[in-house]
């Protein structure tokens, strides 16, 4: 599996996708920190991250759209299948490589609250708690993106589908506000809010470290990795 991780990381870093993703995260983290912490003088770094959730809408499709489609296009999937590694290892290897890439800018962003703490009274547990939630939000979205890329052979289709799923997920709380409050005894709007990954993230910048939300992210990630493995296996059977 380490071989797959190394190869995937290499592929992400020899092309432009990895760098674009890192830049994307760093640019927005920089802009928001500048506005919120430096200009407005807020002592809460978590607000910066709270405003940044949307970058995953574009960042995740960028990161995941190639992951499985590229192998199929270049016909390297037959190599992976004929090597003595299991499908689980292939999928996990690719997933972990993307997580490592995602961690790179997040680690850099993680330095910001430390720097800020020299100049003011930053509450670090809230900052790093939110950063962890931010990473897990990304991780669960990556798993969804990975699954989408296992469904198609075309990068663009995978990218656009992933973007759409992200946007719908992002606006679920808004959609929930518009559906009838009494639908299914109020269960429908509640359900929509519950399954929104982004909505769950907003409790963290507000200072509520809700472990159930982190568990939810982890479960979503695991479920979609499982789906991906099954979808790849199915391909061999059809």
């Amino acid at each position, binding site marked *: 599996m380490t071989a797959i991780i190394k190869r995937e990381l290499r592929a992400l870093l*020899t*092309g432009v996708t990895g760098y674009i993703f890192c830049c994307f995260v760093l640019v927005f983290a920089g802009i928001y920190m500048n506005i919120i912490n430096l200009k407005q003088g807020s002592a809460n770094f978590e607000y910066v991250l709270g405003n940044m959730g949307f970058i995953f809408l574009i960042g995740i499709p960028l990161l995941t759209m190639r992951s499985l489609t590229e192998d199929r296009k270049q016909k390297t999937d037959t190599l992976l*299948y*004929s*090597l*003595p590694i299991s499908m689980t290892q292939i999928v996990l290897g690719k997933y972990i490589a993307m997580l490592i890439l995602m961690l790179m800018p997040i680690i850099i962003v993680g330095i910001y609250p430390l720097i800020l703490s020299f100049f003011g009274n930053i509450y670090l547990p809230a900052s790093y708690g939110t950063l962890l939630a931010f990473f897990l939000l990304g991780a669960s979205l990556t798993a969804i993106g990975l699954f989408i890329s296992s469904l198609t052979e075309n990068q663009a289709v995978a990218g656009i589908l992933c973007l759409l799923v992200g946007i719908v997920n992002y606006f679920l709380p808004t959609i929930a506000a518009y559906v009838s409050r009494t639908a299914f005894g109020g269960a429908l709007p509640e359900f929509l809010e519950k399954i929104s990954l982004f909505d769950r993230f907003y409790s963290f910048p507000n200072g509520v470290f809700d472990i159930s939300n982190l568990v939810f992210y982890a479960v979503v990630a695991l479920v979609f990795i499982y789906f991906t493995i099954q979808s790849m296996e199915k391909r061999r059977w059809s």
Partner: protein
Amino acid sequence: MIEVESLTKKYGENTAISDLTFSIDDGHIYGFLGPNGAGKSTTMNIITGCLAATHGSVRIDGYDIFESPLEAKSKIGYLPEQPPLYQDMTPREYLRFVAEAKKIGRDQISAAVDEVMSKTQITDVGDRLIKNLSKGYKQRVGIAQALLGNPSTIILDEPTVGLDPNQIIEIRALISELGKTHTIILSSHILSEVQAVCDRIMIISKGKMVANDTPEGLEKLFAGKTELSLSVKGSKDAVDGVLGSIDEISDFTSEEKDGITLVTAECANEVNAEERLFFAFADVRLPIIRMNAERASLEDIFIELTKSDTVEETADELDLAAEYGAAVEADAAAAAETAGEDMPVSDEEEGTEQ
């Protein structure tokens, strides 16, 4: 040692291969022949675990590819029809990746990669990007990849497709060289290639195995008659007269052109008609300028066996072909006899050809 048992693969309604049973013994180069769409690639993909079978089993050195895939896969190296290369890597990086994935020990990777690179002669392009390499070199990188981890069997799917004649010769030489240390299965639809490289031939048609034998065995099986072609300096009438007097010649056609008569004659296989012809023409002082005997070539055998592709066929004929294939496998000599008795179809077909 690969044992394939009643392997069947269906794509929806289409049956790609049906009830394929054969075994691959160690230490031979197997040629896997068949017309396009016969199921060669499908079979190879299943043997290497890239595709799942509808039913049937594949055992590699005793490991079932479906039940213990990791052990089974470590025994084979596979080069698919399109070499599965990462275009944005150099051959060296690519081979290192494959070596790591094949679980070659960390300290042996460099040595193993260097070894396969020198075997396939790609050392001097080792640090160029794969996308910039020529097709022949890409093919070699693909073969190098299959060789890593020293698998007992190497499976090559159409390894010479799209190469220029020089590259084809080089790749064939490489395959023959590898055949000394590995069992090789090589698919192709180029007959001369199989004839040049392989010492066992399997012919597959419409998803069924129709023959599995040595090239000589196949030839013996199919050579009922020898076709002699001669050029004799003399008139057509004189030549016909001589030919008519020789008992061994069962049938002949002749044609005169510029004082030279071109003859195509048929005779039974066992008799030595060449000698009789020589003396017969010498007696009447008609010089034979050229004479050669053509025994059934692999090409004829191939066409004969895969004919049902073009001729409208019935299920019975297919069954006959399958029975025939099994007989071939069992005993070439015995099969030769049964072929005459049980296979009126094949005789008829021969008849129409003449």
